[in-house]
């Protein structure tokens, strides 16, 4: 079904393009929002990403649904990074002094986890932390690839990731997620 949809899009079928757009637009909007934070900018990134995707879909070889989604996500991420570079939002990377108190340990939250809250906390991270965190933890890039994308060193990428994790942990605790030390106490 999805394969036929892709084939029709490759032929320039407008109806197929609309169907493919409706199937992935919300998911990819969340991806875009994790990188650029503000919704108008995320819409702009998303539109550019879909434009690029439909214009280059003729060269895409469909294998499975995961491959299609991963291809679309890659396009969105690249457009988001390009947007951040164009708007000169790299860096600022926060220094250690600007980070709040770090927790002693990390605990896995319970089942009644508000996923939207976690998603919102990730969006609240500073631009540099958020970008490295998204690329490493969620997209699966290596520090070397991140360094090439963001024109930073690998050590800087590692440092930014560590700091992003620390900030996120702090906020989780502040939002009611207990750490192991507190539980054991």
């Amino acid at each position, binding site marked *: 079904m999805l394969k036929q949809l892709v084939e029709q899009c490759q032929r320039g079928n*407008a109806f197929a393009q609309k169907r493919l757009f409706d199937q992935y637009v919300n998911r990819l909007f969340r991806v875009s929002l994790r990188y650029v934070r503000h919704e108008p900018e995320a819409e702009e990134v998303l539109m550019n990403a879909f434009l690029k995707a439909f214009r280059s879909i003729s060269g895409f070889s469909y294998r499975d649904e995961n491959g299609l989604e991963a291809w679309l996500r890659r396009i969105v991420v690249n457009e988001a990074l390009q947007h951040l570079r164009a708007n000169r939002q790299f860096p600022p990377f926060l220094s250690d002094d600007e980070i709040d108190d770090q927790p002693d340990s990390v605990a896995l939250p319970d089942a009644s986890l508000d996923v*939207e809250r976690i998603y919102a906390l*990730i969006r609240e991270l500073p631009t540099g932390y958020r970008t490295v965190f998204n690329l490493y933890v969620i997209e699966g890039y290596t520090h070397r690839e991140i360094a090439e994308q963001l024109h930073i060193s690998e050590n800087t990428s590692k440092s930014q990731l560590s700091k992003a994790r620390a900030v996120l*942990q702090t906020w989780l605790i502040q939002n009611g997620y207990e750490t192991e030390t507190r539980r054991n106490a």
Partner: protein
Amino acid sequence: MKPKPDEMPDEWVRQILRRLPDAPPPGSSFDSERLWAQLRPELQPTVTQQSFGWMQWGIAACLIGLMFVWFWIYPSVEKQPLAANGNTAPKTRAATKHPFKQNLPTELTQTDAPTQSFTTAMPTGTTAIKSKTRAPEPIDAVPTIQDVAIKSVPIPDLAMIVETVTVVEKTPIPLKRNVADLPAKRPFRIVHQNELRAEEEARPKLYSTENFVRLGTGQRTEPLSDDHRPALVMPLTNKPNQ
């Protein structure tokens, strides 16, 4: 290896994000239809550009094909009138120098017969004036266009053959001709003596004949008397004072 306490499990975060609903975040003003309305016009030019690209290629291919056909047909069209002129040229030359004796019937090849009939048919008192002292020419038959076309075109060309066939169809010429239909050529002109004298008198004279004296007498019915004898005056010179 025991994970560091300050590290958040990355897999936990990925699992959390996989559980996110397939919808915009709560409180978001995002509208997918509005985004599609902005996106749709941007996608349309690509379709028209592709079709226009194919149209361009199609038009270019048609033009190239037409040019190729024109250059292929034009030389054959040029050869046709040249071939037609060439057909007539050897036809006329053949008529004068190389009579087609092979294709002519036997009556046309006999050249002595017209000469004999010519001499015996002359009436008495007439002088045959030979304007040209030459043997009577054989009666040349007009060669057929078909024969000339075949002989003049060494390499058979389909277009030429078609053209020659059409020419034969349009202007049919009989292969055999009756001897009686041919106009007889007379090398001599039979003229009476009185007619000749009249022609000479009618011709513009190169000199004046006022001072000429007739010598000799013509035939007269009455004898001349002595009184009527005119005085014979013969000027010695042409000078008016003498």
